[in-house]
């Protein structure tokens, strides 16, 4: 593995990294979040560093289970377990989101833990995004973004100016453009980067300051420019689902005779290459990006668009099959997978639906299913 890919892999697998430590040492505040609807640009414009919280490094949910039940999402239980072990003590605040029933309850449970166990940080903010794309929702979302800015200003004594927002949009768009370039290269018959490597890239880039991310992505793009993966006899796969951070899981899929050429995941592929408009009012640009351009199944009036986008992705990336990835007890993705199965039937496109607990084991069983699926796909080709 090259130096740059190795650096990125280490970042993706680390709970806390040198970039974050350096930013904190320089006086920057670090704000944790878990959902891709949380506007990174606003946090950045407040001179803070958004940090996507993951379950990386977690091996159990013993403490998390004192709050959550066995029918709650394993990702949320792992992350909260880590929180209760003070593994997020480097954060200056957390921005929660009404993304799903499991994760939004962490806002309640964390506040309880703050009150009863002194679990910091003290800045715990619930960011509320609408579930529909109507004009009424857009207006509400713009108010929410302004409210969020005000809360950051008030709590941290910062000033978020329009210019700062425009600059933040611009630097995030640079990161997104680099992701687009990488994704473009993945459309080639021999992509320069594997799906497992790409997941690591996406995880790493949301755990470091955006300036560092741009720098690393530029190095990576240059490095992989002439690289070609060995794709002989390999199926081209698109992966779609909720949060995923298990790089080994994607590696298992690829080791079974495939290359993952695109993904639509909460932890990256769905939104990492989607830019905001740089003209006009920055808050409106941000609102329109998150509400209209990044659709996840929590948005209840957007399935048709999501399905069209997926169909386009399957075509553009010359995919042979689709794998859906759902965490157990995720109702949002449970519903989406149900619909995607119907769409796959309509399109006559092979689909495998996988369900897992995060870091939950069962890799052997999963591999058997993947291998059997790939055999079926090859037989019908």
């Amino acid at each position, binding site marked *: 593995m090259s130096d740059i890919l190795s650096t990125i892999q280490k970042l993706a697998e680390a709970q806390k990294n040198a970039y974050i430590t350096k930013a904190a040492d320089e006086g920057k505040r670090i704000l944790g979040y878990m959902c891709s609807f949380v506007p990174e640009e606003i946090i950045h414009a407040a001179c803070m560093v958004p940090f996507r919280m993951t379950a990386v490094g977690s091996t159990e949910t013993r403490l998390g289970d*004192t*709050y*959550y*039940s066995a*029918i*709650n*999402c394993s990702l*949320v239980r792992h992350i909260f377990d880590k929180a209760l072990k003070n593994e997020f003590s480097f954060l200056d605040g957390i921005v929660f989101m*009404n993304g*799903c*029933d*499991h994760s*939004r*309850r962490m*806002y*309640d*449970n964390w*506040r*309880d833990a703050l009150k*009863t166990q002194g679990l910091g940080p003290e800045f715990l903010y*619930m960011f*509320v995004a*609408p*579930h*529909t794309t*109507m004009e*009424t*929702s857009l*207006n*509400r979302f713009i*108010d929410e973004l302004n409210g969020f800015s005000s809360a950051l200003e008030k709590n941290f004594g910062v000033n978020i100016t329009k210019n700062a927002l425009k600059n933040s949009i611009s630097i995030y768009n640079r990161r997104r453009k680099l992701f687009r370039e990488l994704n473009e290269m993945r459309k080639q018959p021999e992509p320069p980067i594997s799906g497992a490597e790409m997941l690591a890239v996406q995880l790493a880039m949301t755990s470091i300051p955006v300036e560092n991310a741009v720098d690393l992505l530029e190095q990576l793009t240059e490095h992989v420019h002439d690289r070609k993966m060995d794709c002989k006899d390999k199926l081209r796969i698109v992966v779609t689902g909720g949060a995923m951070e298990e790089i080994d899981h994607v590696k298992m899929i690829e080791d079974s005779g495939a290359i993952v050429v695109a993904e639509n995941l909460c932890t990256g592929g769905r939104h990492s290459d989607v830019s905001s408009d740089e003209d006009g009012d920055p808050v409106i640009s941000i609102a329109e990006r998150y509400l209209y351009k990044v659709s996840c*199944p*929590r948005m*209840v*009036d957007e*399935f048709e668009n999501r399905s069209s986008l997926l169909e386009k992705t399957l075509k553009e990336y010359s995919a042979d099959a689709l794998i859906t990835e*759902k965490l*157990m*007890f*995720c*109702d*949002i993705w*449970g*519903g*989406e*997978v*149900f*619909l995607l*199965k*119907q769409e796959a039937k309509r399109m006559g496109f092979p689909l495998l639906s996988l369900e897992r607990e995060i870091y939950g084991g069962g890799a052997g069983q999963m591999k058997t299913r993947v291998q059997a699926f790939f055999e079926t796909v090859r037989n019908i080709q």
Partner: protein
Amino acid sequence: MNIHSSENFSISRAALRASSMGSLFSRYPRALGWVKRLMLPLALEKETAFNRHFRFFILMAGYAMSNTEDIRALGVLSRDFQDYLENVIDETSDKPMVWSEWNLSNEILRAFDVRQYVPETFAVVAQMAGSDAAVDIIELAEEEGMAPEHCSAAKTAVGALLANEAPKPDVIISSSHPCDSVTSSYQALQYMTKAPMFVVDTPYWDDDQSFKHYENNLWDLVAFLETNLNQKLDWDKLREVCENVNITNHYLQELSEMSRAVPSPTSVEPLLLHWLGRMAAFGSPNGMKFAELVHNGAKERLKKKQSIISEEKIRMIWYDVPLVFAPLFPWLEKKFGAVVVSDFMGRIQTVPIDTSSKETMIRDLARTHLYCTMVRHTRGPAEFYMEEFQKIIEEYSGDCFIFMGHQGCKGGWALRKLFRDVCRDARLPSLFVSSDIFDKRHVTEEEVKRQFEDFFRSNGLA
């Protein structure tokens, strides 16, 4: 998708027969009282081939609601349910059919000339044909690919469509509450039926900005309905419905409060029954009459310091009453003298609707919708549950708390520590039971009864 080619409504027809009987007997409350008394022993212990078709209906009313006024009230409510079912299965009607999500209050729909179907209601309708009927419908949805962990109400809604128990919709209206399961299932229902759908976006907070957002959504909903139904909303009709809602809520809110008395002159059963009725037709004259009758009956008992059951021994506070276990009520009442004095499903806590103008009606309808059962708790932070729970503990002299968590309610289960802590601080014994509100496969009636019995005995309550 394997949707059958012809509609049959066989389960709905069975439920309609039960509702029609209730409605018929309501004219003769004494006769209905005797029927109930005669049937109750046959229904109480367990479901059999003999009692399958009437057990749920008989036991849903509980052991408690047995005086003449209460029985009349049951009959009156049955009329709304009968009308609702007749409308659902009427394939000859030329009125547009609107599907409306169960937590989306339906006053606005009643001001249009439409038929209405509440997809999740089918989970209750199916119970009237025996508990296996609901399971069959749920399995149908699971076989088609619905996630097993989805809320059983949502799975039943999809299963009913697959089983041709649902009418063809012209329009679907839904909301982003109460949970991921339900909102997700409406995307499936819309996909399967291809009907135009409007989703009301539910706010998280309880502040003016949030209420205003919901109010704006209701105006959007009115515009959507007017366009898609090619009708104008009848504002006079809406005013009439809202005035009925105000009176109904007044009675039921007082009824909720009356349970604070010891012994309790009422229980949550009439409130739960009304919760079912309101899905069929909120703001109807029958619903209002039902509320008045059960309120008056309870008020009489309150004056006489009488319990709703013969001897009150245990006062229970419940979290979520699982409807499939409605037969538990008479068993609890008869065997332990246990009365459910408060819960989160039936309890009414709302505001009146100002009917002076279109604007005030929509503004206050937004508030009443957000104060509805389930909606007012599930959509926001934990305080929406906990503050009311603490108030209930302070005011209702409960002897214990039952958290009969529904397996589909992930948001509720994620708060179990917070509930447990409140009980611990209040020194209130608590029982946490994993169940499913409509699907008996999750835990059997016998197992639940065993857990209750052990809990009562180990806490010195029985």
